[in-house]
């Protein structure tokens, strides 16, 4: 493989992951939940959150393929199911119907690093689904296959880079950036939600046509 296409694929993975992980929404939650903590403890929470999320995501990235082989699920079937799951989570982002956070009692423990921050906010079902989907082809359109140690290494490396970027974002925002206002969070949530909707429609459509449920119109 030539380096250009490796960089291109890695860039795609990174773009997908950053859309799925919704860094700004996670950041808003982190800032909100750790409001009353001293600075040192907040940084600690950020660190633990990122470590746990990267652990969860890498675990699923490495075991994902095995699940499907064991359970006998075909790629198109998972594309359709996963696409619908992603669509729902995109819909929640666009319409802001995710009441999970709003209704949570404000229990300020150290525990928040693992739940709810790492799971389900950062490494939630949608992100895990997305990682499974990435393994059914380079990119969600599934034009190239995913196999061999090289693709695994690339995917794991991109996951680590994405979480590292998020960690940097957390770190510098906690250390006192006041640029994070509600409008910025809302804007990023809405627009990434919209992108997620488009991506998931594409996934479902390619799953439907790949499954043979519906023949595609042949081009003249």
């Amino acid at each position, binding site marked *: 493989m030539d380096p250009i296409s490796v960089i291109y694929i890695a*860039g*795609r993975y990174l*773009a*997908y992951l950053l859309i799925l992980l919704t860094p700004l929404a996670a950041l808003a939650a982190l800032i909100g939940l750790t409001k009353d903590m001293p600075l040192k403890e907040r940084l600690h929470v950020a660190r633990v959150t990122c470590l746990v999320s990267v652990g969860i995501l890498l675990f699923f990235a490495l075991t994902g393929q095995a699940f499907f082989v064991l359970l006998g699920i075909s790629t198109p079937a998972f594309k359709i199911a996963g696409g619908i799951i992603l*669509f729902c989570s*995109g*819909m929640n982002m*666009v*319409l*802001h*119907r995710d009441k999970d956070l*709003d209704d949570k009692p404000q229990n300020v423990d150290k525990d928040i690093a693992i739940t709810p921050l790492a799971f389900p906010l950062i490494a939630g079902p949608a992100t895990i689904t997305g990682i499974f989907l990435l393994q059914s082809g380079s*990119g*969600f*359109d599934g*034009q190239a296959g995913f196999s061999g140690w090289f693709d695994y290494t690339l995917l794991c490396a991109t996951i680590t880079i994405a979480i590292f970027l998020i960690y940097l974002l957390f770190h510098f925002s906690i250390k006192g950036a006041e640029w994070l206002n*509600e*409008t910025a969070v*809302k*804007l990023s949530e*809405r*627009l990434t*939600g*919209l*992108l997620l*909707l*488009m*991506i*998931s*429609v*594409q996934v479902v*459509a*390619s799953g439907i*046509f790949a499954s043979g449920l*519906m023949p*595609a*119109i*042949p*081009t003249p």
Partner: protein
Amino acid sequence: MISAFSYFIETFATLFVATGTLSVIPLFISMTPEYSAEERMKTVRTAIFVAVGVLLFFVLTGQYFFDFLGISMDSFRIAGGILIFVIGFDMLRSQDPNDNIKKEGISSKKAGSSKDLAITPLAVPMMVGPGCISASILRKAEAANQFETILFFVCVFVFFAAFYILFHFASNGAKWLRPMVLRLSYRLSGLVLTAMAIQFIIDGFLGIRVSLAAAAKLAVQ
């Protein structure tokens, strides 16, 4: 000079038709029966800023951005269609617009009111939808020289400024509408929105079948 002038006029007309100016304004006003004129204009201001930003982003990155994420204009159509359908369906089914106001009143005491139409659906996909983006990309490609390319961007700004002014007049005029009329138009625009949404989905679905067949053909070869 004359060709540049006609380019400007044509671009303006394209934007006028593609954003559906005349349908977006009454739809927005009837979607927000409980808003005061100031609240409407505040929402519209945010929406126009976002719409200009999104449109410029897509015009400048063109097809590359879509290709990079492996999505197509057709999946945008379907996604936008489903989104609009859900919103229109909610408008048809909700008991009374005034109920919504009460509910929103309670929840808006928490951080951020949940009824916020500015970014979605007003800016994207109602103002700047797939049709508007693809028409704009085409118009920019048709610019004959550098001057016309600059003119294109000027036209985008002029158009949205005009859009804003139109909105301003419309939302001031809406003060005179009776609650009965507003309630009726709320339901009616719910119906219009769901029908529009299904049309979006049909168009997108027909398109996506063709493009995926082409992709499958490439893979076989």
